[in-house]
């Protein structure tokens, strides 16, 4: 599964994209798994209310299942316009 990061999430984790092997069932499970890996992930995911998630380039939420998902994106609230 590909994971992509944007804006300060990308900066805090230090990566724009990575491929991970995971059996996480939901986005929340994936977040827990990543946060357990290294401090920089734990720091980036510390406050989920400050984060948004997209699954295969569609906005989603942290309860969503990951079955069949190829790309998960984490980023702060968007500031377009």
């Amino acid at each position, binding site marked *: 599964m590909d994971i*992509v990061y*944007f*804006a*300060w999430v990308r900066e805090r984790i230090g990566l724009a994209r990575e491929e991970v092997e995971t059996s996480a069932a939901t986005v929340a499970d994936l977040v827990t798994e990543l946060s357990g890996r290294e401090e920089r992930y734990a720091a980036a995911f510390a406050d989920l209310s400050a984060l948004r998630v*997209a699954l295969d*380039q*569609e*906005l989603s939420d942290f309860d969503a299942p990951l079955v069949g998902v190829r*790309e998960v*994106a984490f*980023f*702060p*609230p*968007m*500031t*377009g*316009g």
Partner: protein
Amino acid sequence: MQVRVQEAGFDPGAQSNDFAAGCSGAGAIVTFTGVVRDIEGGGLVAMEIEHYPGMTQTALEKIAAEAEARWSLADVLVIHRYGRLKPGAQIMMVATAARHRRDAFEAAEYMMDYLKSRAPFWKKEILLDGASEWVAAKADDEDALTRW
């Protein structure tokens, strides 16, 4: 519907004239142009706009399609830039054409409200002293969506 995500600058007047020329029969044309403005007290060197290339075009097209479904429109245009923009540079524009002014105004406002909070762009301010700061999303912008 015309949706363009681009790094290059654009001329809002020329774009809106071209857009209007393609909409004969529409009596009302509304445009919104967003411009990089300096921060309070000055000192903004540039605004860096990051986006999610795989998702941006689709997200903007969804917003434009929803506007076309809700209001009676002859056409809709969205242009949004990414990359490093100087103060005074155009960031984005939307244009709407309709028979009636209310449709053109409301559709343009709707698209702006959704672009602000639902299109995958993030802005970072680069300051004179070398510092930089991500622009935080505003609660007002999220609240604006409840109108629709």
